[in-house]
């Protein structure tokens, strides 16, 4: 097996493969950094160009897009406070405050190096454990999915900021949003007021961009109007000591490993993907931390958890496509389509029948990370320019990109209205100091919880199965524990109050 892998690595670094891989990675980084342009859209744009290439060249390019996209999202997240892709939501929580405090370089490079380490660790899982991981994922029936998503939802309690009540309300709003529109099973219209517009429901992406991008832009605008000097240091620099950043990450091996595991596992399960993985990893990091109250103020743990998990998630999504030929998410679905167009039949025999392509994808995934690192280094000066662009120019451009992205999602204008509605809602929530993350988590999970609940009951009407199936029951118990822990931390934090402001030691958890 390692013989194959080494041969594939030697092949991938040849210019014929390295070039499409690098172009793909660059395209992914650009697409990932634009709010409103998803990795899926980028990969669909790249797809036609790969028809003329040999299959492995095409797949190398797409793997590059996937890896680059996960990394590109962090730049926008750190510098503008807007997640460039859904998988960078949690990166904004600490990456943006860190950049605001005058350390944009530290934020971006912490994210980048965490992506590289998370990605490479994820690759180790992908290469070493594709078979067992995929087999374990198949054991997940609707009961287990339901309980897993309930567990994910229980993290809402951990993501609340000052007020627990406001956090829970925000999560509830998110869940209600998913109820509006046609129900996911038989398309019965719910809360649609009889209108066509509401019948389609609200797509995730316009909601996300609306909530995060608009809310961020509005607050930026207000600050401009007040003529307050920007809190950024003069002549900001992305220059940073890479060694110290790497040390910051590697001195937290448990955090890195745990976030990577969460990313891989959520990627292996074909349902929610990177958009949930990074939030879950962030919440876990906060739960295990010795200084949970510092999360959200610009500490490295938050950035590391989010970014290592979302790149590892890419490796996880490749597991099911390698093992069974079943796409784990929209991006791998496009890759699967590309394989079929090239006459490669993905399926359980894929690795043994097409070892050159299979190990080529492994190799491309490995090589994409150093390539991304180099491109990020080259691109750093341009990112800086973006931050230096006057807000009066930058904001309209970002707004236009958001709008175009929302439209391009399924090519219908309704999504633009959804963007506007949630932009206003997001702004209001920020004004009234509601946290936004629980709302987004509610939107991500609502549909999946409902669908799997209905599926489970359609398969077997016995509701006790949720508790008696060991995996499912275990996860439900973990959810209760998770809420309990979050409540306890919340209490402790409030009791400690200002005392916590004193310089806490910068340790691993």
């Amino acid at each position: 097996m390692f013989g194959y892998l080494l041969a594939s690595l030697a092949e991938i670094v040849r210019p014929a493969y390295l070039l499409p891989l690098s172009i793909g990675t660059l395209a992914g980084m650009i697409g990932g950094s634009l709010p409103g342009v998803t990795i899926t859209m980028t990969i669909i744009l790249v797809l036609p160009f790969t028809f003329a290439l040999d299959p492995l060249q095409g797949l190398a390019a797409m793997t590059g897009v996937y890896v680059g996209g996960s990394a590109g999202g962090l730049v926008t997240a750190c510098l503008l406070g807007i997640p460039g892709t859904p998988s960078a939501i949690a990166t904004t929580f600490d990456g943006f405050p860190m950049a605001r405090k005058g350390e944009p370089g530290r934020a971006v490079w912490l994210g980048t190096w965490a992506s590289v380490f998370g990605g490479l660790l994820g690759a180790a899982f992908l290469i070493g454990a594709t078979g067992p991981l995929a087999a374990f994922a198949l054991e997940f029936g609707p009961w287990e999915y339901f309980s897993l998503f309930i567990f994910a939802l229980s993290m809402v309690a951990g993501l609340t900021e000052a007020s627990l009540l406001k956090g829970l309300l925000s999560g509830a709003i998110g869940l209600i949003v998913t109820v509006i529109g046609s129900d996911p099973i038989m398309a019965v219209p719910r809360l649609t007021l009889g209108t066509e517009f509401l019948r389609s429901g609200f797509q995730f992406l316009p909601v996300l961009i609306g909530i995060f991008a608009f809310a961020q832009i509005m607050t930026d605008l207000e600050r401009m109007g007040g003529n307050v000097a920007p809190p950024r240091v003069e002549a900001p620099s992305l220059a940073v000591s890479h060694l110290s950043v790497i040390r910051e990450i590697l001195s937290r091996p448990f955090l890195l490993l745990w976030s990577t595991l969460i990313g891989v596992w959520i990627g292996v399960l074909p349902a929610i993907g990177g958009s949930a993985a990074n939030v879950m990893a962030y919440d876990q990091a906060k739960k295990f931390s010795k200084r949970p109250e510092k999360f959200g103020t610009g500490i490295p743990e938050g950035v590391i958890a989010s970014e290592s998990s979302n790149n590892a998630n890419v490796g996880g999504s490749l597991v099911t496509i390698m093992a069974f030929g079943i796409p784990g998410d929209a991006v791998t679905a496009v890759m699967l389509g590309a394989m079929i167009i090239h006459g490669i039949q993905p399926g359980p025999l894929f690795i043994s029948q097409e070892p050159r392509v299979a190990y080529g994808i492994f190799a491309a995934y490995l090589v994409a990370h150093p390539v991304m690192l180099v491109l990020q280094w080259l691109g750093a000066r341009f990112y800086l320019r973006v931050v230096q662009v006057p807000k009066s120019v930058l904001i309209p451009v970002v707004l236009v990109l958001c709008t175009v992205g929302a439209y391009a999602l399924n090519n219908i204008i309704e999504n633009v209205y959804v963007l506007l509605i949630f932009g206003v809602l997001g702004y209001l929530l920020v004004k009234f100091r509601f946290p936004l993350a629980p709302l987004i988590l509610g939107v991500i999970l609502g549909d999946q919880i409902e669908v799997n609940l209905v599926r489970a009951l359609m398969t077997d009407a016995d509701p006790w199965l949720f508790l008696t199936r060991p995996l499912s029951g275990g996860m439900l118990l973990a959810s209760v524990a998770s809420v309990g822990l979050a409540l306890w931390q919340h209490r402790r934090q409030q009791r400690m109050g200002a005392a916590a402001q004193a310089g806490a030691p910068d340790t691993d958890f």
Partner: protein
Amino acid sequence: MRRFGLPLVALALVVVVLVAASAGLAAYPDRPVKLIVPWAAGGDTDAIFRPFGPQLQKHLGATIVIANVTGASGTVGAREAKNSPPDGYTVYATHDYIHSTYYTGVSDVSYKDFEPVCTVSATPSVLTASPKTKWTSWQELLGDAKARPGQITVGATLGSTSHFFPALIEKSAGIKLKYVSYEGLAPRMNAILGGHIDLTDSNLTQKGKVDAGQLKFIAIATEKRLPQAPSVPTLKELGVDVVYAVTRGLVVPKGTPADAVAKLETACAKATAEPKFAEDMAKQGTAVRFLDRKAYAEFLKRNDQLNHDLARDLGLLKR
């Protein structure tokens, strides 16, 4: 020069727009044609129309832009196509779901909202069983189904083709199955590999999994056995009178000028006759199937009645 750059560009844009507007009178097609695929890139339908797009483009002489308008079991795309201007520049890639989603109340778009252009392909359905089931043949499945009515689970997109195909078998063989909602082939494959459902509708693209012993093809819904899978019996030879394929075709919004429809039809005929297209379709477990607009209209009418009756028999009829 620099100072005049922007106004010059603006002027050029205005000219382009004016020319484009006045060209509305020019012969069809003089600008790109949007092909609405109502499911995501990478899905079955997308995989068929993506190689078809360039062939159609070649014979139509206009750029074909594939737009994946996704959501709500393909009905968002259907509605978008229905509401598009009937000028021949919006073409909608559809299949049998348009009837079933209409009658089950999932969508309010009917095939009557469109003018048929041509059919492109037919993908025969294959009744597929989980590796965790004990049946090795249709007879064993039938016996088990009779012994345990309403216990055997079928994963299906409710109200769509993957629901109607097993329902036809149910009716013809006199058995009772239990349906579980799984939208799309990929989630169904996950569930069936893990044994969370017993049966599902799939097609020959899943042959690799059968060869690896991870899935079982029980029977195929064609008239005769297919050369790609000679060992898979047809439902007909097993005494179940069900022939079922998902037929994909092109339609345009009602009111599209006749000459545009005729040009699309001619281009479609030539595109489906391309050997390269047949080759691409064989990889998808699909046969090229061209019907001209007249034959397609009749096909749609017949199919609509069939779907109406099925929805009624299943107790799903909402209109």
